[in-house]
């Protein structure tokens, strides 16, 4: 087990090897986090997957060409060029399919992925018998832990270039991602922008592929932006967060793998990013599941309370005019709306907790408290006002108005209520229901 000192030393980048690997993966995480955000918004997250497979034939062909030209066949610039050319061809092929057929993005990506990868496998098997072909596949399954300084320099150069381009074209790319049709109709060069974005992705993918491997670069392009999406609705903030999540995953994952030598760095980085994703999915402040649930249940509670109090008021109305606060038999409440017995009990308990109901000795007689009665008349008044508004101004038949009013009244603000009152003056303090009120028994 690593000691505390080891852990601190690794996280703070004290050893040279760790520093190289951690800085390289963190920079790659930043660049792919930013480009991936645009892919996510264009619903093309799996583009990295398609692209990284599409580079395969280019690597094999570049190798074969360099061999026949008398070279070593494994010169990195040559292989990278081959990979980039074939990746760009894949991108163009995908865009051509998308723009000239009715097949969707996912089919176009899947086509490019499988056909290019298969072709690559065929090319690779052909050149495999040539001398020096061994180890070509490590290009596809690169290892983060064996990154050297030249890799990191390349990553930094490409990463900075890609990030700078994406930020310079932020406005154009935003329009492309959110409203392609609008962009095209106002004269933006949509196709050029689309190609440019995918070239940026290709650059990140090819660099990352060689340095950290196929699955990690796919994950880097998808997971950070998706995680960032749960925290914000603003594109700028999302880009910053996505880059940060990518960088932090790279830094933490690579640090952990430096501590446990036999665990693959790429896998640990993916798992770190996945953990951050899970955390964001649950607790994200913009779209996180937990917060959404809390909001929903709060709204449900509010609607339940308003239904209960309005029902109580409507029953009181049938018990005699002018309406006065008197005990209501629980059975009447149960009959008034289609509540199930346990549901009504839950609502009553909640109302008692909120002091809208007097705690009484007899559970079958409900007595509203002073504040509960006031609240009930206020809620009923809002509901009636809204119903009247819908009838007089929205041409909705009186028989349909209750449900429509019910859908909106729970979110009526004080301002809106004032506006409605002004609109509907002069009216009694609490207007009568437009529905026929059942006559008192």
């Amino acid at each position, binding site marked *: 087990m690593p000691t505390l000192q080891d852990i601190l030393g690794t996280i703070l980048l004290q050893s040279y090897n760790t520093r190289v690997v951690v800085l390289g993966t963190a920079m790659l995480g930043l660049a792919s986090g930013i480009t991936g955000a645009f892919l*996510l918004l264009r*619903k*093309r*997250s*799996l583009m*990295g*997957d398609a692209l990284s497979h599409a580079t395969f034939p280019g690597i094999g062909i570049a190798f074969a060409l360099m061999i026949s030209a008398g070279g070593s066949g494994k010169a990195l610039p040559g292989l990278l060029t081959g990979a980039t050319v074939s990746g760009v061809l894949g991108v163009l092929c995908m865009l051509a*399919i998308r723009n*000239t*057929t*009715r*097949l*969707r993005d*996912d*089919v176009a*990506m*899947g*086509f490019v*992925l*499988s*056909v290019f*990868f*298969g*072709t*690559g*496998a*065929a*090319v*690779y*098997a*052909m*050149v495999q*018998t040539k001398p020096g072909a061994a180890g070509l596949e490590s290009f596809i399954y690169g290892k983060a832990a064996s990154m050297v300084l030249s890799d990191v320099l390349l990553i930094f150069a490409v990463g900075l270039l890609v990030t700078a381009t994406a930020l310079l074209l932020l406005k154009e790319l935003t329009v492309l991602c959110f409203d392609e049709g609008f962009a095209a109709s106002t004269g933006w060069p949509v196709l050029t922008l689309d190609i440019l974005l995918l070239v940026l992705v290709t650059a990140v993918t090819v660099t990352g592929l060689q340095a950290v491997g196929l*699955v*990690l670069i*796919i*994950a880097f*392009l*998808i*997971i950070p*932006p*998706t995680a960032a*999406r*749960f925290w914000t609705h603003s594109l700028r903030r999302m880009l910053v967060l996505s880059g940060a999540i990518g960088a932090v995953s790279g830094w933490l994952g690579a640090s952990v793998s430096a501590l446990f030598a*036999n*665990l*693959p760095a*790429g*896998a*640990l980085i*993916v*798992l770190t990013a*996945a953990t951050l*994703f899970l955390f964001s*999915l649950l607790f994200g402040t913009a*779209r996180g*599941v937990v917060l959404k649930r809390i909001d929903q249940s709060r709204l449900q509670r509010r609607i339940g309370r308003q239904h209960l109090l309005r029902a109580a008021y409507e029953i009181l109305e049938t018990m005699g005019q002018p309406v006065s606060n008197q005990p209501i038999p629980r059975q009447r409440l149960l009959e008034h709306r289609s509540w199930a017995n346990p549901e009504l009990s839950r609502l009553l308990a909640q109302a008692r907790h909120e002091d809208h109901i007097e705690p009484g000795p007899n559970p079958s007689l409900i007595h509203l408290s002073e504040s509960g009665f006031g609240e009930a008349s206020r809620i009923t008044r809002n509901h009636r006002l809204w119903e009247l508004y819908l009838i007089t101004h929205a041409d909705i038949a009186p028989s349909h108005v209750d449900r429509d009013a019910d859908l909106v009244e729970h979110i009526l603000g004080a301002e809106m209520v004032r506006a409605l009152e002004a609109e509907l003056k002069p009216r009694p303090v609490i207007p009568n229901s437009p529905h026929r009120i059942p006559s008192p028994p």
Partner: protein
Amino acid sequence: MTWTPDDTWIAATGALCALACSLPGCFLVLRKMSMMGDAISHAVLPGLAIAFLVTGDRASLPMFLGAAATGVLTAVFTQWITRFGNIDQGAAMGIVFTTLFALGLILIVQAADHVDLDPGCVLYGAIEFITFDTISLGPLEIPRAALVNGGALLLNLIVIAALYKELRLGSFDPGLADTLGFSSGLLHYLLMTLVAVTTVAAFESVGSIIVIAMMIVPPAAALLLTRRLLPMLLLSSAIAGGSAVLGHWAALVLPPMLGFERTNTSGMIAFTAGLLFTLAWIFSPTEGLLKRHTAASGPPGDPA
């Protein structure tokens, strides 16, 4: 070039596998989930590793079950993340399969401390070597891979024939399917189970390249030629079978022409499928590039 009986078996097995994959592939393409085959073939790694760690043995059946279970889990997790997180299905799929793959890698490294377990050789069969692993059936020596893929094809045929109406409805209008009382969720998971079983059976016996390509390319080509489901299934099967046979033939013929010794049959099958797709793309009578070109360059206002 000499075509031996082994070549016949390889082409036949390739065709069986291609058919088995292209049938559920049609539904995946229609449901905008065509990357599922690729996702599953990456995501099964932890299933294989766990099956190995539990049984301590590389026997096929536990491995197969582990892989198929993980394949179904991939679909389930993707569905959950899509629904609860309200995010794009492709992104959800990518998150699930990369995470599962990473988990699998770590488990395999743990297992490999005890015994040699190379992901490359455990995971993926190679179609060239299927004739070395045969099962005697009466007088015939049948490659195990042919039986496995034939079984997968049969399963797909039975399920699709039995649930043709429901699957069709579920693919085009899940809402209506729910309204009419067929649970589109249940159908979805049934289809995903079918995809997972087919994927695992096929890549375990003949390799993942054929699986991924055959789930997407023939259905996509067929979709360019027709807008009806039954013709699409038939065309897609024909294109899949044709790619397999032509692909293996090309794998024998092409390398000598280019001055190489041999190539990879799976890769050539995928390449051939790509060529057939390109033909459909250019020459499709209803919406091919040629048709579009002539339609676009015709005289303006010409109703034809």
